[in-house]
């Protein structure tokens, strides 16, 4: 079946199987590798993308569902210049191995889109669905707090 959608500011259409998962389609059919597989069941958040502005786990979305949707991955966020979230991640060393970073950046981007000045508690709450095993989260929380209120 054919689906039409917007991906990182570009109109796309693609043939997909009814049981194709969006995560696999993004990575294997389109070649965008920033969404990562950590669990394949929605526990870890490493495959997060923005779907119509909301952070969702692409491993839990069927490709057939994205007809007419607007999808943004980290490749799309930093297309021209790094976003304030990405810059804050650099400033605070908010990653180590970097595997969770795309998902974290997506979650933080969504948060700041809807809440310009989240407090630390709200930041923790918003990122609590994204697992990181390296950093102990402290620099990630600091980065999001630094990025808040900055315009891209």
């Amino acid at each position, binding site marked *: 079946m054919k689906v039409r959608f917007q991906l990182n500011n570009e109109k796309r259409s693609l043939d997909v199987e009814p049981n194709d998962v969006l995560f696999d389609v993004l990575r294997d059919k389109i070649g965008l590798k920033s969404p990562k597989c950590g669990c394949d*069941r929605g526990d870890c958040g490493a495959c997060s993308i923005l779907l119509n502005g909301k952070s969702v786990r692409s491993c839990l979305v069927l490709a057939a569902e994205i007809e007419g949707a607007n999808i943004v991955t980290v490749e799309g966020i930093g297309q021209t210049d790094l976003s304030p979230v990405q810059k804050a991640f650099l400033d605070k060393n908010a990653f180590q191995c970097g595997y969770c970073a795309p998902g974290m950046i997506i979650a933080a981007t969504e948060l700041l889109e809807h809440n310009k000045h989240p407090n630390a508690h709200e930041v923790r709450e918003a990122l609590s669905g994204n697992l990181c095993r390296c950093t102990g989260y402290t620099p990630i929380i600091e980065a999001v707090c630094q990025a808040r209120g900055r315009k891209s």
Partner: protein
Amino acid sequence: MTSKKQDELKYVGKSVSRIDEMDKVSGAARYADDLEFGPNLLFAEIVESTQAHALIKSIDTSAAEKEEGVVRVFTGKDFPGLRFGLYMQDRYVFAQNRVRFVGEQVAAVVARCPKAAKRAAALVKVEYEPLPAVLNQMNALNSDCNLVHEKLGEYSHVPWFFPKAGTNIAHWRKVRKGDISNAFQEADFILEDTYNVPRYAHCAIEPHVATALFDHAGRITVWASSQSPYTQRHLFAECLAPLGITHKDVRVIAPYVGGGFGGKAGVTMEILAVVLATKLKGMPVKVRWSREQEFYNTYQRLGVVAKVKMGVKSDGTIVALDHKIHWDAGAYVEYGANVVNAAGLSASGPYNIPHISIDSMCIYTNLPPGGAYRGFGYSECLFGIESHIDRIARHLKIDPVEMRRKNAIRTGDILPYGSHMNPSGLVECIDKVAAEIEWGKKEMSKDPTKFIGKGFALFWKAPAMPPNASSSAFLKFNEDASMNILVSAMEIGQGFLTAMAQIAAEVLQVPPHKIRVETPDTDRNPYEWQTVASHITWGTGNAVRRAALDAKQQILEQVARVHHYLADDMYLDNEMVKCKQEPAFALPLKNFVITGLAMEDGTYRGGPIIGRGTFMPEFSSALSDPETSQGGHPNVHYTVGAAALTLEVDKETGKMRVLKAVEALDAGKVINPDMAKGQLVGGLLQGLATVLYEDMRYNESGKLLNPNFTDYKIPTCKDVPLEIVPILVEVPQPDGPFGARGIGEHTMLPAAPMIANAVHDAVGVRIVSMPVTAEKVALAILQSEANHTARGAHS
């Protein structure tokens, strides 16, 4: 004269930003599963044992073979007798006629797409004849217990292992110092107890993945998420030697690794992709572990039952320690036995104890293989030792921190196996942590159901490595005086690439961001043992420093040939060669590091600058008396530290919250303070997770019950201590690059005992088994109150 002071460092010791940062925040970073292999790529799905211990009666692959998209189905018969192992070759690539744990690889279906492979794998029928399984290391020691490996005596292993054929003991490390038999008679007080530590999972967010291609010319290339590309190459080459494959024919390429923590050290599932590829020439074969497989068929942290007997004088001086450590090493111990070995050598904890007896026993069970996990056995042993110190101090009415300071090992003290302690800032760490946590100041909660306690713990760890573990580096200048450094240690998040760039930058006076440090490719990058043991800042750092010094010498000699200054009079500054005698002379490196220097007659001198450096700790030796461990020099040095935390405990629910945590480490010389603090904060939370949340649960059939992040809880953003204070102490390591030694693993070591000690301080109950959960604390409080009431009734 140089404008700067001799001892002033420009790049080392500075928080320069990471050289991999743009890769990692832009989505550009490529991990092993992100690489493209084209339309010929095949996918393997592994059929796994459902039994903890059984004979394989038959395997029926006929239905699977008929499934559309399936290329081949393989079983153990296709790989007869194929074994591997880093320290002991006891592990089978595919189960032969017998399985030894639930999850062991029995067969593989290779197909054109992952879905077909998965579908077909479910159609493979395996008939088992169950054998009695041993799921507990203490039962495995019983003389009537069935053997997990009947042929233990035939397995090849490193010379410092002592397997006991005819038993389930794969290795027994004995350490004897002083005279333990009489020492306890000198003691005024003796405390004996048993501590239990369960198994744990690494939970790197990136699962294991390996793709192997055996091309038509007969060479094999493996792309893997790996901490150990060279060790893997060696083990693959050994395993494939019967096919006529030699080391030069095996190439391992390791892109960025999405978290390691020891789990991607050595060889685990990668060998499956390799052997399958050898049967499917010209087609890359990918094996990708699911999160479930990540839990039950990679290394796990070994479980421990530790019996600690400690004797002390009434002033708190420790006179004797008898430590019997029983490790649940799982069905195959090829890497895990070295955990047992390393931890056994150092199971005194960071204390100067005159009389020591340590028995560290590596015991086979029918559970998944144990192996390297950040901390390499030290966390497990320190839980008992540091709990014990606290209990003894309180019994003697001595301040627990004072007792630790009194017995703390100091520079030059004699280690359990007879060599001497390296320069150490342990006492400085103790004092700084005690001051920061305001040790001795009792804090009260405003909530009457909540109690606040403080817990303290010391820690130490040495790199566990063979005596000839070595590192090497190539350094190549480019036309613009930027450079590429080739090493084969791995960036697993710790900031290794940046640290190496800083070391070379310091020697060559070129900014770190003009330096690329490349991830490993065994065809191009020179030898490295492995990225484990917190040794690479030290070992690979030394190799990189030597490569940079080699390049520097070439640069100065080249300039000396043409400009006739003495090499000793010249120095590097700001990407230029300068001369002490000629203040006006400033020759940019980019003018000649590739092109050479032009002469008046149009000829050139010199040419590309390529530095090389190697490092091996030539003083190290693993050979010693097997009955005492005396006589060798198995450990190169220890990194030491102290930590404390303030814990709030709800007396009604047992629920705990870390209000503040402080950890101090002696890093020798901190190469990059921001990254070092990042290690400390991240490692501390990983440690706290092992004591507060995580725990692998098996059923009575040996099946892991919680192989996923829903049931095996790793911390989230909401579980971070309210405040963490990292403290870095610098007592230089004489043979370290700029004095540095490793700190990566150490950061998580003190977590468990300091929680147990803080719980006791807060609510007066002592938990001797990890994890220290709210449930256990609440039940212990109830029990203690019941005991109290009962005593009241009797009196």
